[in-house]
């Protein structure tokens, strides 16, 4: 299927990534350089890093697929997900970056351990749950990469995984966050410009937005409504008002406190970036996501009119974007560019996840729990080994992906929300939140997310997203246990800028 120009462009793209990795490796002198790029990220590198860490491998394929199958009621995803980047910067980032610089935090676990005076238990619990969730997410990313490479080159699944794995692991191991952030700037640029350029062609080839909406309304009048009526009357009509509320909290807050997203705020060079990065991150990301969604609508219209046929697979809707571009842009050179865009979207999340897993293991578990006396060089080596191990393990899992992979990824986001959101929010904004409260909140959130997630999938569907119940349990545990236990010291609360404000007065 692939033309020589596709090989050339993808080859060139890989060479650029490796060159950035090689350049970045010269800047790594200690663990802080490796984990936080020496806290030196400039405005655009930081903003695009946040956006592309949220923007997962399934963004192009999944977003257009959701548009294809559910129409306009699913459009809220395109507001909630970009908003998670802004939420992360404003609600978590402003305080964490300032306190992190003063108190030398390397990870969010450093903050939790310091704020809640729990250097081992809370740090260990949050690092472990962060690693498990990130690994699940990582398997999903590698599976998405292999889908793209297999489809492009017709090579075996395992070969596609090994090629992608070796390149991403290579530049992440040698260049740490310097390599991840600068490759992400390149990948983000390709993704943003590519979608802005290509999506309008698909929409126009389907007859324009007005015509597409007319066709959608003919399929199901609710496809052009802002939500589906409650209760859901079909499998595709799950975006009811109550579901959308829970979906909004899940995406906006859950993604914002995901370890591979929130840790980025510690690497920003200056606090003044937080002034305009929220609106710019939202604007750029939402523009791209709306356009991708519109391609899903367009492809649905083309299919309904008999112009286009999607592959006869179970997840046919995930091929909406690919099929739409293939139909609208038969030019081979543009097609090759499109291949690079999809790879850029997938790879920019994968490298950040791998670095996050390596960091949490080396810094939080190895250095801060097992070997506090470990010299910096040793921690740096352990970080690199952990990145390689995370890549190897998840590649192996991705070769034979678990049958419930999609469910596991949604579980992962739900677990992030249920375990991290309450301890972080309460820690930053409520002086009464205690260490025991945080441990109870995180522990109960983890258990409740697993129980409700299992219940929703295997016993009986719940009316709202399962993670909302787990979030409520986590919040309740935080409030009750904190009220029953002694508060943290006033010094710690002052030093961590705890209180009901975002910026210090």
């Amino acid at each position, binding site marked *: 299927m692939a033309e020589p120009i596709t090989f050339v462009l993808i080859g060139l793209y890989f060479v650029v990534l490796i060159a950035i990795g090689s350049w970045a490796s010269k800047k790594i002198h200690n663990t802080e350089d490796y984990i936080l790029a020496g806290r030196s990220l400039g405005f655009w590198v930081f903003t695009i890093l946040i956006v592309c860490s949220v923007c997962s491998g399934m963004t192009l394929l999944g977003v257009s697929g959701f548009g294809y199958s559910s129409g*306009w009621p699913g*459009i*809220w995803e395109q*507001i909630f997900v970009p*908003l998670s980047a*802004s939420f992360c910067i*404003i609600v978590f980032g402003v305080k964490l970056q*300032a306190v992190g610089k003063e108190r030398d935090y390397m990870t969010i676990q450093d903050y939790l351990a310091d704020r809640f005076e729990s250097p081992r238990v809370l740090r260990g619990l949050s690092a472990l749950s962060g690693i498990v969730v990130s690994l699940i997410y990582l398997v999903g990313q590698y599976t998405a990469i292999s889908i793209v490479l297999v489809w492009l080159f017709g090579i075996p699944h395992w070969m596609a995984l090994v090629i992608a794995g070796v390149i991403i692991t290579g530049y992440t191991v040698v260049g740490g966050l310097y390599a991840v952030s600068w490759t992400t700037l390149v990948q983000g640029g390709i993704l943003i410009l590519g979608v802005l350029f290509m999506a309008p062609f698909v929409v126009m080839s389907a007859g324009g*937005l*007005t*015509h*597409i*909406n*007319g066709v959608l*309304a003919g399929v199901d009048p609710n496809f*052009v*409504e*802002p939500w589906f009526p409650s209760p859901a009357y079909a499998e595709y009509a799950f975006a009811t008002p109550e579901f959308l509320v829970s979906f909004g909290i899940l995406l906006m807050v859950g993604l914002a406190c995901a370890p591979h997203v929130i840790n980025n705020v510690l690497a920003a060079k200056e*606090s*003044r970036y*937080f*002034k*305009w990065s*929220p*609106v710019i991150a*939202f*604007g750029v990301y*939402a523009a791209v996501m709306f356009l991708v969604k519109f391609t899903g609508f367009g492809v649905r219209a083309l299919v309904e009119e008999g112009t286009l046929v999607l592959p006869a697979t179970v997840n046919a809707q995930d091929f909406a974007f690919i099929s739409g571009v293939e139909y609208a842009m038969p030019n081979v050179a543009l097609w090759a560019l499109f291949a690079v865009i999809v790879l850029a979207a997938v790879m920019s999340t994968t490298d950040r996840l791998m670095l996050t897993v390596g960091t949490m293991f080396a810094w939080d578990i190895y250095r801060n729990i097992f070997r506090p006396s470990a010299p910096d060089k040793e921690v740096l080596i352990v970080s690199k080994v952990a990145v390689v191990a995370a890549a190897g393990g998840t590649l192996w899992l991705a070769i034979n992906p678990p049958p419930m992979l999609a469910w596991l990824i949604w579980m992962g986001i739900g677990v992030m929300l249920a375990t991290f959101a309450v301890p972080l929010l309460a820690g930053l904004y409520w002086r009464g939140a205690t260490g025991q409260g945080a441990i109870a909140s995180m522990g109960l959130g983890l258990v409740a997310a697993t129980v409700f997630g299992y219940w929703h999938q295997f016993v009986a569907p719940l009316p709202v997203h399962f993670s909302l119940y787990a979030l409520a349990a986590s919040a309740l545990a935080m409030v009750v246990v904190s009220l029953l236990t002694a508060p943290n010291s006033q010094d710690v609360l002052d030093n961590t800028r705890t209180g009901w404000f975002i*910026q*210090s007065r």
Partner: protein
Amino acid sequence: MFFGLPLHTGLIVGGAVVLVIVVLTLWGFSFGEAS
């Protein structure tokens, strides 16, 4: 009608996007760089 959508859909979705942008812009103006 709004690009072939019922007017209320266009207003609700468009209004939500505008609201978010306005709130985030207000945040930008209220952000104190000195802290």
